[in-house]
């Protein structure tokens, strides 16, 4: 210190720093990391909305263990590399307690090493292909045995004998279809065809020609994003609307159905663990609260609900553990009952959610009539026994 002036400045700076540190002590930062731009923004912005809505609700009710939650929102820009980069920024620079986010499997796979290295926890809200089990991710979206296989069981019970698989060309459709094919072979049913189109692909002329030639009883559709619009449009133009060849979709929820125009997809099926039409008071309240914030026409979907319940599950686990520490939260989260708009659910020891599967049929309003549900909550299985024999989840044995 050369002069007293700089000494005073340094003193002031120290006080300011102490004040901001004291302020930081009553808040806890969490990361919200979804694509707010790029091709996935259409879906992920709504998940971000649901996650921040849960955070605001918790803050209004007094926060977590007396701490207000401060959401640090980052844009993954539909790019896995940016997801990884923003995840490490959240952990290292913003010092977040945990992160809620991700959608595509590519984004999750890119973030996984970041969370493992820092031993931090990611709450992932979307259905996926399984075949992965990290101690640093809480998977609340459906495992294959909670979405794809229940859909297959439903179709089998409906008497469907031949199955045509159409998907976007990346890890989720390929793995999901691998599982379906194993089960078709096991049950002696017929694989009428299997076709992949690049993500964002718009030309389905050859795929439709093959569907016409194969005459399947049902189509299992794992296309993602805009390709769905092209697919349904060109199917309709070829005289094969959802009423002539049933289509079961795994990436079309209320939001996508409305964006596509409901007349195009009316009568087609989807399997999810949550539908906006789920009859319960808790769900009615949730839908109403969301619409009060984002407009009367806002759609509420399965991934949004999972994003929302992830925040509450984290809060419950922190309070049960009495700590924000990753290990303590992870241990406390397993088996803890969480009340959600889709009923009371809990995480299994493999850190995936136990949940019920529903089959819905789209009506003209873009809502699903729930026509089937699994008998009970389904235990999550990251590794389908038929497809990946002998593989088990490392987390479960820890």
């Amino acid at each position: 210190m050369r002069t007293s002036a700089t000494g005073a400045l340094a003193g002031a700076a120290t006080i300011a720093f102490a004040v901001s540190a004291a302020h930081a002590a009553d808040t806890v930062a969490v990361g919200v990391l979804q694509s707010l731009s790029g091709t996935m923004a259409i879906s992920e912005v709504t998940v971000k909305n649901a996650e921040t809505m849960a955070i605001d609700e918790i803050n209004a009710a007094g926060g977590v263990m007396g701490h207000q939650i401060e959401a640090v929102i980052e844009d993954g820009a539909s790019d896995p590399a940016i997801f990884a980069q923003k995840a490490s920024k959240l952990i290292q620079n913003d010092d977040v307690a945990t992160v809620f986010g991700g959608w595509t499997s590519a984004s999750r796979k890119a973030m996984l090493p970041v969370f493992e290295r820092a031993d931090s926890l990611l709450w992932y809200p979307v259905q996926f292909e399984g075949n992965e089990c990290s101690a640093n991710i809480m998977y609340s979206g459906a495992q294959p045995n909670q979405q794809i296989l229940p859909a297959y069981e439903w179709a089998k019970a409906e008497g469907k004998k031949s199955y045509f698989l159409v998907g976007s060309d990346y890890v989720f459709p390929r793995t999901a279809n691998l599982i379906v094919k194993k089960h078709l072979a096991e049950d002696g049913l017929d694989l009428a065809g299997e076709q992949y189109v690049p993500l964002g692909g718009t030309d389905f002329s050859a795929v439709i020609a093959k569907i016409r030639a194969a005459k399947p009883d049902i189509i299992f559709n794992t296309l993602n994003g805009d390709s769905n619009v092209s697919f349904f449009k060109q199917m309709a133009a070829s005289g094969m609307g959802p009423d002539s060849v049933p289509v079961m979709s795994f990436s079309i929820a209320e939001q996508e159905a409305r964006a596509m125009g409901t007349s195009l997809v009316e009568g087609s099926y989807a399997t999810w663990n949550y539908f906006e039409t789920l009859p319960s008071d808790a769900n009615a309240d949730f839908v109403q609260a969301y619409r009060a914030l984002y407009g009367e026409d806002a759609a509420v979907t399965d991934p949004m609900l999972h994003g929302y319940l992830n925040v509450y599950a984290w809060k419950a686990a922190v309070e049960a553990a009495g700590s924000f520490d990753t290990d303590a939260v992870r241990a406390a989260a397993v088996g803890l009952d969480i009340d959600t708009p889709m009923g009371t659910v809990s995480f299994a020891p493999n850190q995936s959610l136990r949940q019920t599967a529903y089959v819905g049929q789209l009506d003209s309003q873009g809502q699903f009539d729930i026509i089937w549900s699994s008998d009970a909550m389904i235990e999550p299985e990251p590794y389908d026994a038929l497809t990946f024999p002998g593989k088990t989840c490392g987390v479960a044995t820890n």
Partner: protein
Amino acid sequence: MLDATLFAGQVFNGFSVASLFVLAALGLALSFGLMRVINMAHGEMLMLGGYLAYLTYLIVPGPAAILVAMPVAFLGAALVGGLLELTVIRRLSSRPLDTLLATWGVSLILQQAARSAFGPIGVGVTAPDWLNTGLSLGGLYFPSTRIFILAVAVVVLAGLGLLIARTRLGLLVRAVNQDRMMAAASGINTRRVDLAVFCLGTGIAGLAGVVLSLLGPVTPSVGQSYIVPAFLVVVMGGLGSMVGTTIAAVILGLVSALSQIFLDVSMSQVLMLLFVIIFLQFRPQGVVATRSRALEG
């Protein structure tokens, strides 16, 4: 395994894909042939055509909407193309690499503008009822949307052919194409010819946007999915030749559709790229070699 019906169906689909390629690529071929400008914002002219079709549908509903949308999209895209030519391309015409970068920038700006104006979610254009049928012919089914698009491509090609061969503008275009300096020396206003051709090219892209909206959604990035095949067609066709562009579009459409009998769409795209690379190894000048001084060093 090779089923005759599937084969015949794929030949039709090949021509259908080719008609889209031609509509998307003609504008690029025109502007490259005449001005040696690679317009990276060409795909956004398609997008613009699609959104103009969507807006037209909102204002004029009913069965004739598509017929109104086509001239609207043509003029709208041509207008924006003209502005682009006057404000950007003309000022950079002597620096081809700079036009590449500048038009790429314009492409990003237009995509973001569409995202702000219409949202990231695609908008849908519903085909009128008279296009929602099809022709059944001996086990084959030809959707009328695809027949319609083929017809549009044929009409555009014929119209463009007549324009170049029979009109005064066509004469000027041919003159400038053959020797820009000489044409200018003999009193032709080459800049006005450039402007007219550029507007024409972007207008055709606007038309392509309208017909694309019959097959898929109109999104801010719709142009991006057609720009790569369009460039392939132009390169393979012989950089700027209209006949070459058409033949290349048909060849690539058929390669794509016929290979899909055995392969899925992802693999057939790989095959298509390989095909173009091998083709250019043996015939680097493209399908039709353009004899133009403009293309000589």
